[in-house]
């Protein structure tokens, strides 16, 4: 099997562990795509070589303490924002962990991502700055770009705890041609015991799909698609999940992304999906599959031309062409930074 196929198969079908010959390569691929903790959870009950089992056990313990720290960060944000009385919705990894969803099991969690109403952005920013968060960088162009066009505030970092928070007011950049209904996302969100909120099940899947395709160049795609697989498997036990998912995807103008995510999840992870919503498989899906699996046994990204195509595509999705030209021009004129985390 080529590329990360074997890793995807292990996640989907833990029993295939007995076929693995080269664990070192599996671990490098999994680390490169932040999937080692998830793999550890999936292979918990398998009979593995001692060394492989020990590496995965350590990865899971590592995940446990990362999870503790992430949930604490969410709690500190909650304390800072509670006096404002605005809804605060956790997104992505922290949300999965806080809600105890399967998608969160072993999943690496990066920055804290929260969604707040757009009109509350000013007071949220002020409250965070008052509680010890500060701007990561003071760079005029980036700052302007973020505020005017992106779907989030420029990143803030806590000066004591050294952890970043991304404050979103919608789930796609304002420049993207698609306009998800941010108010509806918040309105339908679900309150947890802590007072923090998470997206409703269909919105969570849709956000995850939007994130998979529209954010970045799909470098961490295999992990994002794994989120979708786990979310869908768990949520589709609800009888009306599929009809709600279709309805919400239309409302957020994200039907195409949602359908494609479902098709790819089925292809790579065998996710059971509703055929009508997933739709027929166009030839283009094959390119997406190849992009998602473009990683070799040394953890290196392969298929440079295909990756470049996706990189351009991701910028194109975010911005109208004239603006894209302006953006790439400005980026190009500035000295190159430590090559983006591509």
């Amino acid at each position, binding site marked *: 099997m080529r590329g990360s196929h074997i890793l995807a198969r292990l996640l989907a079908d833990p029993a295939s562990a007995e076929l693995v010959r080269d664990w070192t390569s599996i671990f490098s691929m999994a680390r490169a795509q932040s999937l080692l903790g998830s793999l550890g959870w999936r292979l918990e009950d398998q009979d593995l070589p001692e060394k492989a089992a020990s590496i995965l056990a350590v990865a899971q313990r590592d995940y446990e303490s990362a999870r*503790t*720290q992430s949930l*604490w960060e969410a709690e*500190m944000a909650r304390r800072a924002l509670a006096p404002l009385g605005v809804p605060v919705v956790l997104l992505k990894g922290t949300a999965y962990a806080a809600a105890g969803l399967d998608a969160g099991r072993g999943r690496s969690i990066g920055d804290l991502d929260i969604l707040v109403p757009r009109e509350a952005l000013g007071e949220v920013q002020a409250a965070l700055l008052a509680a*010890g968060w500060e701007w990561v960088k003071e760079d005029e162009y980036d700052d302007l770009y973020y505020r005017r066009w992106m779907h989030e505030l420029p990143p803030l970092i806590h000066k*004591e*705890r050294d952890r970043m928070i991304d404050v979103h007011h919608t789930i796609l950049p304002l420049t993207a041609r698609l306009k998800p209904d941010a108010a509806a996302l918040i309105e339908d969100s679900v309150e947890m015991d802590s007072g923090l909120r998470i997206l409703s099940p269909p919105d969570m899947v849709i956000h995850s799909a939007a994130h998979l395709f529209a954010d970045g160049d799909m470098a961490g795609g295999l992990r994002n698609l794994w989120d979708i697989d786990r979310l869908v498997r768990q949520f589709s036990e609800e009888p009306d999940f599929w009809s709600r998912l279709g309805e919400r995807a239309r409302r957020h103008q994200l039907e195409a992304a949602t359908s494609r995510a479902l098709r790819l999840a089925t292809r790579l992870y065998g996710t059971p999906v509703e055929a009508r919503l997933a739709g027929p498989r166009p030839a283009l899906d094959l390119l997406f599959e190849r992009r998602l699996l473009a990683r070799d046994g040394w953890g290196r990204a392969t298929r440079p031309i295909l990756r470049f195509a996706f990189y351009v595509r991701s910028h194109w999705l975010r911005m109208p062409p004239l603006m894209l030209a302006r953006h790439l021009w400005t980026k190009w004129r500035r000295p190159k930074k430590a090559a983006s985390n591509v």
Partner: protein
Amino acid sequence: MLLDGLTILYHRPSGMTHILVTPAPEILAALGDAPADPEELLRRICERFEIEAEDAAEAVAARLAELEAAGLVRRA
């Protein structure tokens, strides 16, 4: 955990280690009995250590603010 008179505390919910100097551990101990507002807290500490409220007020208030910023103490 006490090491040479300093209290080293592992705070499980946050995964953070704190090193506390007097009167921070005493504040935490006094709050451990039951939640209290700042006045009540000051009264408990003064009673336990037999000190005057005026002498302790400033130190207790300063440490309390630090403990709140560190997330070890929170407002109800």
